[in-house]
């Protein structure tokens, strides 16, 4: 089942993006981001460009998303176009992605994007993101769970395609109209 830009837009509509930031118009290419929305250098990881954040998040998405979905690159990219704004949340995403990247380089001597799917899965579990409860102010594991793993899962399962995977085309958080609840199963 293919994730589309519509799904990314739906996920953003569900959980918010800075007003005025349209999908696909805020992609920063190369170089460390600057200003209030930049990465948090206090984290364990080195600062990442927004492009590197996207690549790391996409690499993680390929592990935490089911194999049944395609179009992950465009979906995650579109979603992050709206999410990586100047908010505290965006700073948290950048910092947590940098921590994942830093762990990949330290433990696997490789950027997360170059790890095999099994290695990426192992990396996330070694970080503790599988058993951690999400917490934006918590340990590395809890922040990776909040800003990386759950960020991506929230985007997927609040989108119509993600919902359809489970059997609900209008999942909670998605403004899918007030008609679907009346329809019987397909």
């Amino acid at each position, binding site marked *: 089942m293919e994730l589309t830009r519509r799904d990314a837009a739906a996920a*953003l509509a*569900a*959980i*918010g*993006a*800075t*007003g005025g930031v349209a999908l696909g118009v805020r992609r920063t290419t190369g170089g460390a981001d600057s200003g209030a929305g930049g990465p948090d250098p206090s984290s364990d990881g080195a600062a990442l460009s927004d492009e590197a954040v996207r690549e790391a998040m996409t690499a993680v998405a390929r*592990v*935490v*998303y*089911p*194999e*049944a979905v395609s179009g992950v690159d465009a979906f995650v990219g579109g979603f992050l176009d*709206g*999410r990586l*704004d100047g*908010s*505290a*949340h*965006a700073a*948290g995403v950048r910092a947590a992605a940098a921590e994942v990247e830093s762990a990949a380089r330290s433990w696997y001597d490789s950027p997360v994007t170059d790890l095999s799917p099994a290695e990426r*899965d192992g990396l*996330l579990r070694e970080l503790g993101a*599988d*058993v951690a*409860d*999400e*917490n*934006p*102010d918590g340990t590395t594991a809890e922040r990776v769970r*909040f800003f990386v*793993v*759950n960020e991506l*899962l*929230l985007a*997927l*399962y*609040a989108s119509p395609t*993600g*919902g359809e*995977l*489970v*059997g*609900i085309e*209008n*999942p*909670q*958080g*998605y*403004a*899918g*109209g*007030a*008609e*679907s*609840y*009346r*329809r*019987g*199963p397909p």
Partner: protein
Amino acid sequence: MSGAESVGNERSDGGDAGRDVNRTPVPDADVCVVGAGPAGALVADRLAADHEVVVLDAGPRFDPADRLARQERAIRPFYGRPDVWGGGGARDAYENAGDRSYPLNHARVKGVGGSTLHWQGMVMRLHEDDFNSGTARGVGPDWPIDYADLRPYYAESERELGVAGASDNPYAPPREEPHPMPAFEPSYSDSLFAEACEELGIDMHSVPNARNSEPYDDRSPCVGYGTCQPVCPSGAKYDATVHVERAEEQGATVIDRAPVERLEHDSDDRVTGAVYATPDGERHRQAADAFVVAAGGVETPRLLLLSASDRYPDGLANGSGHVGEFFMDHLFAGAGGTLDEPTRQNHVGFYTSACDQFYDEADETQAPFKLEFFNYAGPSPVEMALTGDDWGDSLLERLRDGYGTHVAMGGLVEQAPDADSRITLADDRTDDRGNPVPRIEWTVGDRALDTIERANEVQVAILEELGADVEWVAGPDATGPAYHHMGTTRMSDDPERGVVDADCRTHDLDNCWIASSSVFPTSGAMNPTLTIAALALRVADDVDARLSETN
């Protein structure tokens, strides 16, 4: 601003977001309203055109642009229910002292809009016998007003809030006109329930929603976000910011983050001022000719008790000694399970069918109760996805296993008034400003508990007829409150038996009204907000009439 944690903590941060906010008292105010929830907002809106009105609210003015971030808080497991609207902490501290714990900060929102910001938006009229519970059922006092007294105000409230409903409920009290909007159509799962109910001779009917089924009052129709409770990002669900904004457009002044700490009075039994705090640590005094306390069923009695004086040593308006007593809520009764077929749940966050068939069977031993057919039984997949130690294909498999075949019913049961169920002031615990916090002693009697069992019997019978594998029953041991605070400043013609009179004006103070479910002498089993709204409009008319007489 995106992200759940991008929403500030309204309790402790500056919170004015660059706004230049003037929180000084309004000169020459005619009316001071305490509380910007639905009651206060409706009173202010109705009076603002002809009077100088000021509204003081303890909580903040929420930025509508933050609603998606609040929705994210509602979905993400890190955030508890009070976090969605910034509740809890020292500002909202309370203590429980009864035999049942009451989760007060799950049950209210402090701020402009009040608890309608997180409510589900169900708006039924009380039944005729609810106003005559003592005579008709032998339980509690009769109200000093009848259904007929409120009937035109109910109709007006339905227009004000915007209610989607139909006249297909044979058990509803008489009404004179259709609802302002057509009812939401029944859900797919309603159609499954309908077959079982027909077999059992149980009637289903539509249910009135304060939620737009079509564009209304310049607000969107429902777009199906599915998070009605605790936040509607689209504005299709009514909340009291509608009337706050309307009141402000007519000239009313609304001051947020201005908790009223006490009401002052003169020697002529008139309230003269509301003393309130502001975030800069200052205290101010708002004078007015009339005061309307609309702070809900807990903070209203607390404010009266905090306002004790030499003349009123037991608290303001407490000549009867009943301020804080008879604290009631509706009790939840429910049951649910799974079918061996899809049930299409969690597309929307409200229900579309109900059963009031058993409501008026009530007597001395059985309380009135109503039944609800849920459209949100079982887990929401997106919420499930954010917990657990799996991802990828194994997570999807878990979601598919967990979602899709649930069914559930809910119901509300009346709690009889009991003086020992009450709100008082804590002896040795204070809030962030040093004022004693509310102490809650919530007691539920056998009549309500027995009625929960009766409701469960009907629910389980329907579910079994439906072929469900019944997996849970919320009975007397598992019941909880529906977050409807009622009864703590009861209405009575007799100053010895009540705090306010039939006009919701306090017996002891000539220029002080209470607009709240706190005035309910008995609670019925219908969600209270439409009755709160009707009473608020009636209060506004009385305030207007008396101010006109004075002038």
